[in-house]
């Protein structure tokens, strides 16, 4: 049970002067219970890849299979794929429309013909999971704060019980507390067996959270592997389009001065090691 992407290519505006190759020959495997980060700069094809995972875009060549069903299958399979792979876009303004949070949450499950009592149960669970209070149920989604809107968007996708969750820059515009809170929730979901694809330009976030990282550069996969191996790679030679997070840059500088401190993104651990080094 997994999402498989095999030599995926995508061409926008094919056959016109605006033709652009957004993805060329990308391979990716996402298992359930795994956190995969897709990292790259603006215009590297991250969002295009994300939309392929739930058949909003279809391959120009290559294929995407969700639990062994290709996204190019018929309309009925396509709807099932879109339920299995929940996709959360970056901006809440692009999806919140209902007059109450309750209705907003019921939108997805109703489209997939969930029974009403199940919708209610699922709504409570999803809201609870994202730390949204039941008192909000009758409020208008537009009255919520920015952070609440963002969490409501994720909840309104989770309520349809997807097996995979694809998030496009889910932490953009959240303050540090909210961000960590959201990451903690996602981690918990992964432990419960959800497959998470986290699209981000924040390498540090990917290195600390993900099980595997795919680095895109101009539509090509320039790296795919564990955070540890990406770190090794980054230290040996620069990976195109990526630079070291500041803390690692700092460690690298310290090591060049002769301090033996480990490459880590944990600032407390680093401080302890550094103190020991200086004392000795």
């Amino acid at each position, binding site marked *: 049970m997994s999402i498989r992407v095999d030599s995926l290519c995508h061409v*926008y*505006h094919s056959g016109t002067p605006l033709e652009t190759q957004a993805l060329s020959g990308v391979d990716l495997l996402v298992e359930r219970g795994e956190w995969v980060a897709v990292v790259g700069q603006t215009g590297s094809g991250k969002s295009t890849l994300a*939309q392929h995972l*739930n058949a*909003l*875009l*279809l391959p120009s060549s290559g294929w995407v299979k969700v639990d062994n069903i290709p996204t190019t299958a018929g309309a009925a399979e396509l*709807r099932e794929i*879109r*339920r299995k792979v*929940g*996709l*959360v*876009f970056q*901006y809440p*303004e*692009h*999806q*919140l*429309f*209902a007059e109450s949070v309750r209705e907003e949450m019921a*939108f*997805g499950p109703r*489209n*997939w013909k969930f029974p009403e009592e199940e919708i209610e149960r699922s709504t409570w669970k999803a809201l609870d999971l994202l730390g949204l209070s039941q008192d909000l149920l009758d409020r208008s989604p*537009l009255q919520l704060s920015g952070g609440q809107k963002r969490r409501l968007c994720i909840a*309104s*996708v989770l309520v*349809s019980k997807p097996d995979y969750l694809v998030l496009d820059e889910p932490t953009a515009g959240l303050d540090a507390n909210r961000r960590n809170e959201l990451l903690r929730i996602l981690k918990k979901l992964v432990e419960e067996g959800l497959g998470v694809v986290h699209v981000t330009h924040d390498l540090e976030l990917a290195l600390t959270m993900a099980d595997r990282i795919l680095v895109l550069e101009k539509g090509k996969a320039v790296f795919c592997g564990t955070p540890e191996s990406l770190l090794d790679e980054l230290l040996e030679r620069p990976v195109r389009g990526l630079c070291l997070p500041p803390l690692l840059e700092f460690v690298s500088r310290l090591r060049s001065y002769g301090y033996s401190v480990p490459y880590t993104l944990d600032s407390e651990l680093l401080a302890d090691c550094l103190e020991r080094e200086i004392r000795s």
Partner: protein
Amino acid sequence: MKFLNHLTLGQYVPADSPVHRLDPRCKILSVVVLLAGIFLMVHPVAFLAWGGLLLVLARFSRVPFRVVLQGARPVVMLVIFTAGIHLFLTKGVVLWEWGPVSVTREGVTMALRMGLRLFFLVLFAGFLTLTTSPMELSDGLESLFRPFQRFGFPAHEMAMMMTISLRFIPTLFDETDRILRAQLARGADLEHGGLFRRLKAFIPVLVPLFVIVFQRAEDLALAMEARCYQGGSGRTRMNPLEWKKSDTFAIAGVIGIVAFFVLLDLKG
């Protein structure tokens, strides 16, 4: 897959041609004269001359003739419908009859006249937007309407509104596209069911769109205020409109040709 292909709505075709270089005011007035001329046409045969004029204009403006004809695509159904109504509902000498349906000689003439008239109206009006950028167009309109400011007509504000709305059409298409995707990802079904169900299915797309439009309008108003926008009074331009000799010649030429056509047509 792009869910909405950008509509070709009064598309400007940039080129460096004598027609493009004309003052927008000259072009607007010429189009008014041309359209008035078309309305005065009586004989369907006279439209041959108008067709010839269209070819000459396309040649001068270096706009491909195919693009010019494309401009009439949105009204093809309307033209056929209008011609059809006139064809079957005009009383006169019966040419052909089948049960309650009859075609008369007057009907054929009327159908041709009305259909061609509508068709050429759209084609000539299209020339204005094909050869004039939206900015020039609104500048030209503002300048033409300025004399009416004395009677309280908000010429500058109208022109500004026009520029802003034209500017935001592509942006709103992009936004709609994004909203569509977000709702499709939550299982929205926009393609199945009857008319009513399909209309209802568009509510989740329209509501966010309206919210975004109002948000954008407020942002824009703020940005304009922050740069001390005060409306039209005392405002200077980067590219002031300049009425040249060629503009005088052009409009004189257009009036001459149209007058000639109309006189020829009246004589039969």
